[in-house]
């Protein structure tokens, strides 16, 4: 099964050990696809995570990465072309 975050055009990766749980990314994502997680990282910060059900809506706009004070977010666009069936 295709992981949900890979069915859209773009996706983000959050570095869990850099993230400090400020949730500025949550507040700026125009698609509302990032949310506070239900767990913490090793430092005890409540991470930001991608909501699996909304992940495919990521447009790769980079707003989350631009506001992240901890350089914890990478944004990628899929280079492969998915066949309609694979979507």
């Amino acid at each position: 099964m295709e992981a949900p975050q890979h069915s859209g055009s773009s996706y983000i990766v959050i570095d869990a050990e850099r993230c400090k749980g400020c949730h500025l990314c949550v507040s700026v994502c125009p698609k509302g696809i990032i949310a506070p997680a239900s767990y913490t990282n090793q430092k005890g910060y409540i991470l930001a995570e991608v909501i699996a059900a909304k992940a495919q809506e990521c447009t790769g706009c980079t707003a989350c990465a631009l506001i992240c004070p901890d350089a914890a977010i990478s944004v990628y666009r899929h280079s492969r072309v998915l066949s309609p069936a694979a979507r």
Partner: protein
Amino acid sequence: MTLDTPELDTVLYHKPEALEDYPFHFCPGCGHGIVFRLIAEVIDELKIKERAVCVASIGCTVTSYHYFNFDGLESAHGRAPAVATAIKRCRPNLVPFTYQGDGDLAAIGTAEIVHACARGENITTIFANNAIYGMTGGQMAPTTLLGMYSTSTPGGRQPSRAGYPIRVCEMLSTLDGPAYVARVSVHNPAAVRKAKQAIKLAFRAQLANLGMSLVEVLSPCPTNWRVEPVKAMDWLVEHLLPQYPLGEYKVIPAVADLKKESRRA
């Protein structure tokens, strides 16, 4: 099943090369992290990692050497512009820049920044204004707003006791020396993009030997403002922006030409 394949995919954003992997120690939501990231991005894009020197000041960013993956030097409180001056005059091929807070630049270091600007010294200053002494526990800075709480103005800053806030860009732009003086902010992604453009132009002005360039960045300090990071951005918009209007306060014609060049490119 397809896994993350970042090495195969197009990178739209990634932590800049000029930043070490070492994580920032700043509080959650601190604006210094955003500004450090932007400086590192600009240094990557201008390909000056081998020539850049961060002259750190005293404040929450004093340990910048942990984070920047290029040379750096510590300076005594407020003296960063003097140290950067020496670096530039002795080794003109280096690209020194100072990173200073508002306590550092606008209180103890007022004389240094005024005279570096008056001399038109060919250095760059990134001035992070969070309207407070962050590192030492939230005392009043010269930039603290009237009525604003700080640990040394517990009833709010009163002009009869503590004077009025200093507008650094407005003040320095009256001098003939600076080539570029601008105030930007990092309260949302659009503002962050503009802040990066200003920082890049400031470094390009130095690379073109045009003289002193200074970018003031309005930057949140959620810890000492005593608000959560997201609310700190709203607080910045509501309170700091009216007192410290964004914009370019001084752009000499040669810098304006640089700007046009980048638009054409």
